[in-house]
């Protein structure tokens, strides 16, 4: 019985190999005016060859096979699909409370995938704006919120869209956790509680089975990463202290004021999934992502959807560029950095041989607000094509 539970809890880490077999051997060739490979620089007037849902090759003078379906994007820009690195996309229609199991503060056994609706309208909207992958996380009202998942926004059967059922565990040291009639009610209470639980996870043995501690024990063994929600300086400091104390493989999410303790983050090599950049921020706050990236922190963007629209991780990147982030860094934050932080860079985040063919074609520079998404391809399949009028 326990074994079965364990199996249920620790879900398959990799989807079956059939995930992209559906499209068989179809070949697509995209003639692009500009290819932003992210990992290998920019190729002007190049070709991306896609076969069986994977990128077969990318380069300037490639041979296009005769049976290939050719997409002419010779005046356009091809980029890797964007990754929303921290979101609640498709988890609930409008009630944010759906994503927090707050009855008990430690909810490590909760799996966010169980609340995910792959047919939600919001997914299609996100795709239309170039988002192809999202990390789904529980909310931040529990010290331990549950297990995160990584999904592609392609829809269809789960073997197509499910990348990771347990991608990590969401922790939170943000003020949202504190409620007046549930333990913990105070910041020290919260930190102490997390410490106690992580301590007991260290000495966890399967003999004394406890579903929540089981998951946490994987966390302290660095088997899975922790996504720690922390916004203000004191919260980020508390998070970094916890991370170093338990030697966690961890990522800060939110990180509103993380730039003010950037030295620690650089030293501990903790990446930040920033944001969302709210569309009523002060100039001072809009400059923060640039500061983080400039100091050498690995940066990705979060939409926290539905707090903001998932499509707006691109808006976040555009604003960050307007306020000092370099275009290269912004592009990386939307793609490769996010893939690396989530541990899926072997498949996503760049246009390289062998990577998944998750591509977005823009009519102009994707980091200009007015640029349009023309085509979105996930696993080699065109999932969105802009109507022309």
């Amino acid at each position, binding site marked *: 019985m326990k074994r079965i539970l364990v199996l249920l809890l620790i879900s398959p880490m990799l989807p079956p190999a059939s995930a992209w077999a559906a499209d068989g051997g179809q070949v697509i060739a995209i003639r692009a005016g500009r290819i932003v490979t992210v990992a290998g620089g920019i190729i002007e007037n190049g070709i991306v060859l896609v076969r069986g849902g994977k990128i077969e090759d990318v380069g300037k003078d490639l041979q296009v096979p005769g049976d290939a379906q050719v997409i002419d994007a010779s005046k356009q820009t091809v980029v890797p699909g964007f990754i929303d690195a921290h979101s609640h996309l498709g988890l609930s229609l409008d009630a944010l409370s759906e994503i927090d199991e707050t009855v008990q503060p430690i909810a490590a056994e909760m799996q966010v995938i169980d609340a995910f609706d792959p047919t939600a309208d919001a997914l299609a909207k996100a795709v239309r704006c170039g988002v192809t992958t999202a990390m789904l996380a529980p909310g931040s009202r529990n010290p331990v919120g549950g297990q995160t998942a990584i999904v592609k926004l392609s829809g269809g059967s789960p073997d197509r869209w499910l990348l990771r059922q347990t991608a990590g565990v969401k922790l939170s040291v943000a003020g949202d956790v504190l409620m007046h009639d549930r333990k913990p009610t105070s910041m020290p209470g919260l930190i102490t509680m997390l410490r106690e639980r992580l301590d007991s996870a260290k000495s966890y043995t399967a003999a004394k089975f406890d579903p929540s501690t089981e998951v946490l024990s994987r966390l302290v063994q660095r088997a899975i990463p922790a996504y720690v929600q922390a916004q203000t300086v004191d919260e980020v400091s508390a998070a970094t202290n916890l991370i170093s104390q338990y030697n966690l493989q961890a990522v800060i999410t939110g990180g509103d004021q993380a730039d003010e303790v950037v030295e620690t983050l650089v030293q501990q090599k903790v990446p930040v999934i920033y944001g969302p950049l709210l569309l*009523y921020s002060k100039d001072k706050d809009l400059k923060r992502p640039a500061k983080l990236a400039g100091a050498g922190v690995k940066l990705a963007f979060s939409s926290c959807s*539905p707090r903001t629209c998932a499509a707006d991780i691109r808006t976040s990147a555009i604003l960050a560029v307007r306020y000092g982030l370099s275009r290269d860094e912004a592009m990386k934050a939307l793609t490769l950095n996010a893939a690396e932080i989530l541990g899926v860079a072997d498949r996503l985040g760049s246009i390289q041989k062998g990577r998944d063919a998750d591509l977005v074609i823009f009519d102009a520079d994707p980091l200009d*607000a007015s640029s349009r998404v023309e085509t979105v391809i996930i696993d080699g399949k065109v999932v969105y094509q802009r109507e022309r009028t």
Partner: protein
Amino acid sequence: MTEVKSVCLGGIFLLFPLLAASAGAERIAIRGGTILPVSSNPISNGTVLIENGKILAVGADVVVPGGAREIDARGKFILPGFMDAQSCLYMVDGEPRLLQGEPDWNVTDGLDPFIEGWEEVLAQGVTAVYVAPPAKSGIAGRGAVLRLNGARTPAKLVLKADAAVKANLGVSLNNQSSSLARLNDYADLRETLIETQAYMQRKRRYEQDLAEYEKKKGETGKEDKKEGKKEDIAAKEKKPQDLKRPDKPATDPAHEILGKVLDRKIPLEITAHRMQDILNALRLAEEFQFSLILDECTEGYLVAEEIARRKVPVIAGPVSTSFAEVPQVEYRNHDPRNAGILSAKGVQTAIGVGGRDGLSSKFIVTAAGLAVANGMDKDAALRAVTLTPAEILGVADRIGSLDAGKDADIVVMTGPPFDTASQVVTVLIEGKVVYERKPSP
């Protein structure tokens, strides 16, 4: 003699600076840039000439008189100042937002000219905003167009007071279903307008009665005089009992304002998200013949033809739901393509930021850019944040485009407005440089 001389000299010295001030100091020429006048085609390497705060001339071959101050805009873009028609900039912090207002509430009473952060909005090239009382149900009150001129009194901030009366149809208060609000708002609004009709009728009748009374009184007075002290019964009978000064009906400020709406002197701006509410607003406008402005209009794309047919202008709501802190239930069918579709179908469409915070207004150009990304025509989008809102709110004679005779509210940018890299370099309001970009260190 010497005394006289010195007096004369003194007089000259006194006069001189006055003359100099009136003659030379008020002329500015912005030269060498690409002008996007919005109202007409772009002009490359053009000049905008400003005198006494007004635009004197715009064109490629404008002769700049001597003594004018020159602003070098070579390689830059010159545009009219941007306008956010859905702003809450300058609203007093912490004002309750979930209340019902009344027609005679005036947004200028809720303004805080000392608010911080407006400079950040100005620095993005926004020179005017339209603000309305924030109430979410029923009639909210009167809105005004404001200028970001740094004035410390509401009176000086206001470009146009009573630009519109704002009302709501079916806006939810707490992210719950708004179906009750929908019924309630519609019935209330209609009832109030019917009451106003009755009020106006009473008022007109009083005016007629008063005129008649004055007339009759004058006549009887004359008769009295004519007949002198002769008091015959006929004359008494002529003086009927009801020749009394008619009672003035009590003035009701709320109905006074709505009366102006019914007389089409002030437009009624109705915030409506769902298709049903939009149609209800159109129906009300038809019934009462007021001039309608649709605000937010989230599901407008579903009934764009209908709106276009009635020639009702729209201030299209937030392009992205990210502008609102917590998405409302009304945004369920939100589509970022809304503004583009409305505009393409021929609706006069302005774009508003629709943010929860005054600072959101600084993203108006980004919002227009996002509308372009979602299908709107570039020129229409630029117009939607400059001339169109000015037209809708009745200030197009003053601002909104670069045309001779308009106020010199001008923005100089380093590049085209929708490019991320473009920065605002100079902002003028009424011909005064109110913002200049500091060279980055």
